[in-house]
């Protein structure tokens, strides 16, 4: 349940029996494939989700950087991001556990949408908590959740964003813990969530290894992934680290591969550091700049004040905008296995345009951080970037921000001016 000093189970007692029940179910169904759970999961994520996602050679970026660049295409997973790997796994597990209701939090709405999707598919009632501010600014994702018949509960406390939504979902879970499963959206929360979410997501790196062998003939020199909470990060790193374990993987595809560099790209926002007086960090770089603490069930690296109050984080990318990070990633950074780096909002916006223009793939703003890091990558390659999601959800933000900030490489939108 711990990763070095990180991890653990810091939740109210009322939830502990559920956490223990879940730990037991995780060990039996996921780790031991009891009742063929993992086979079922693998079948469904393939047939419903569209796995495997391709590893695309990026010819134009490769030319630009003088090194082979490959893109792992989680943007092509059903729902448009890697989120479904985890949501489908957990909702299916809840079904195996005999739970009959799902709750989940969501920030920008990607995890909520994936969960709602999985629940519609598996015929499970579903309620999503989402900050009032986020509900109002992420209308398309709210539409999608409602279309999948999920209840969407706006959270009006505080700033009405992700942190408050998580708190509120934990409160619902505490109230309905006996029949309800809480589908956490990242590799955060109390054990077994960080391990379990990693295992469901690590199907990404499992495929990456197989595809690299087939298409490149070797393992990549480096894997680059953006890191907010860290689910796509550990999805992209898990099979290389060797910590992930989902039965039924191809032989050797989860062996530790210490020669593969693993780069976690955080949101540098507008600048690094924490403004304790304002309770605000103009970034979401908890791996690079955070300090150890306890939040949302786990000990990990956090953006917090000296006293331990959690601050509001910031990123142009809503999906990276979180003050914590998965405990396993915090540990891997301390161990030196994962290198934390960060790029700022502007660099992410430029990378959004670069990938759209040069490779015909519009990345999520989260992903754009990983793409942006290629400008600084100085290894020999081949390098694989995890394209954690597609950018359709971010179009309005990018168009507005690019105009406001006069971002390099942003196309003119004057076609709309009559």
């Amino acid at each position: 349940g711990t990763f070095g000093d990180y991890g653990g189970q810091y939740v109210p007692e009322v939830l502990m029996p559920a956490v223990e029940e879940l730990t037991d179910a995780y060990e039996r169904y996921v780790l031991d494939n009891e009742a063929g759970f993992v086979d079922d999961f693998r079948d469904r994520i393939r047939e419903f989700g569209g796995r495997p996602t391709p590893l695309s050679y990026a010819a134009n970026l490769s030319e630009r950087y003088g090194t082979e660049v490959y893109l792992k295409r989680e943007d092509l997973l059903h729902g448009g991001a890697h989120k479904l790997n985890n949501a489908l796994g957990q909702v299916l597990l809840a079904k195996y556990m005999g739970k009959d209701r799902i709750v989940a939090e969501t920030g920008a709405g990607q995890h909520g949408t994936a969960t709602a999707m999985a629940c519609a598919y598996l015929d499970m009632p579903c309620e999503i908590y989402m900050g009032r501010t986020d509900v109002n600014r992420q209308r398309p994702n709210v539409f999608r959740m409602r279309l999948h018949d999920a209840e969407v509960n706006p959270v009006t406390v505080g700033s009405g964003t992700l942190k408050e939504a998580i708190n509120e979902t934990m409160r619902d879970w505490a109230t309905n813990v006996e029949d309800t499963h809480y589908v956490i959206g990242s590799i955060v929360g109390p054990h077994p969530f960080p391990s379990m979410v990693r295992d469901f997501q690590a199907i990404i790196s499992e495929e990456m290894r197989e595809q690299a062998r087939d298409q490149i003939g070797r393992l990549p020199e480096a894997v680059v992934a953006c890191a907010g909470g860290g689910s796509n990060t550990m999805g992209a790193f898990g099979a290389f680290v060797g910590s992930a374990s989902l039965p039924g993987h191809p032989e050797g595809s989860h062996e530790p591969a210490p020669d593969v560099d693993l780069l976690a790209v955080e949101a540098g926002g507008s600048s690094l550091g924490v403004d304790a007086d304002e309770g605000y960090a103009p970034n979401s770089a908890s791996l690079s700049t955070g300090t150890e603490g306890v939040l949302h069930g786990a000990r990990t690296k956090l953006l917090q004040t000296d006293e331990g109050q959690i601050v509001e984080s910031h990123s142009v990318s809503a999906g990276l905008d979180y003050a914590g990070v998965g405990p396993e990633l915090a540990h891997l950074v301390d161990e030196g296995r994962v290198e934390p780096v960060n790029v700022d909002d502007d660099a992410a916006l430029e990378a959004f345009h670069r990938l759209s223009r040069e490779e015909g793939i519009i990345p999520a703003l989260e992903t754009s951080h990983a793409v942006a890091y290629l400008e600084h990558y100085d290894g020999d390659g081949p390098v694989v970037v995890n394209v954690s999601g597609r950018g359709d959800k971010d179009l309005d933000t990018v168009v507005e921000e690019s105009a406001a900030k006069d971002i390099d490489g942003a196309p003119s939108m004057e076609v709309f001016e009559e």
Partner: protein
Amino acid sequence: MSDATTSRSDLAAAFADESALVSYVAAGDPTPAATERYVEALVEGGTDVVELGLPFSEPVAEGTTIQNAIKRALDAGMTPDAYLDLVDSLDVDVPIVCMTYYNLIYQYGDGEARSASENASGEEPRAKGPEEFVAAAAEAGISGFVVPDLPVDESGPLYDACREHGLDLVFIVAPTTTEDRLERMLDRTTGFVYVQGRLGTTGARDEVSDDTPDALARLQDADVPKAVGFGISSGEQAREVVASGADGVIVGSAYVDLIADGVENDDPTSEVADRIGDLAAELKAGAADGVPEPEHK
């Protein structure tokens, strides 16, 4: 409470009459001065133990009422140091329990976070952990801790620090708590055991949960006092809970509702304090009524 010699015997002793009233308010809601006045009113009304909340930005175990109280306190500038100053300045003769979340306790000992700028010399930061805060709390006059996001299995360091400083560590027993978890908790809980009367979060309710008698029944052999919380807001409910076998009741949101109303209506602190004192008196009377006749014992 300028005297720092309270010990866990104080907390258990507060339950001597079998109808103890444990009253919660959030420190600094809406100001430290008001809190001081409210605590006095609570004690005057008959409160046996004051549970004083140290506000944390992510209060996952609280319902809306206390969330809002915490927000008011944080917005007004409450910090762990200000909290300890406030405790130190309280002049009441009942034990004070600190109710907070683990990260605040944990960070207090963090040389790195507390003095990152002073630490540029590169010297090794002190390790984080609960020791410093427990020491400071004991010094300020705290008798014990309730930490809702710290289940028994993660409580080792805090338990050790509490023992070292003679403070009680109170665990919350939930309706969902399994037998083996209960055993582990009873091994460590001192002062009293906090019986969570219903699923969910804190918050005033109109009725006592049907599960309360069962929750108490399975604790009947435990050799610590049993106080029931979560949802109690009236003297009648207090009576009922004590009649079910509790040694005391824990009330929070019902007071906080009065404070919130006062803030909303801009009422003078003294008026709000009077209402709080009246409610405490009603609750204490109800609890006392619930004590079974001797022959029933």
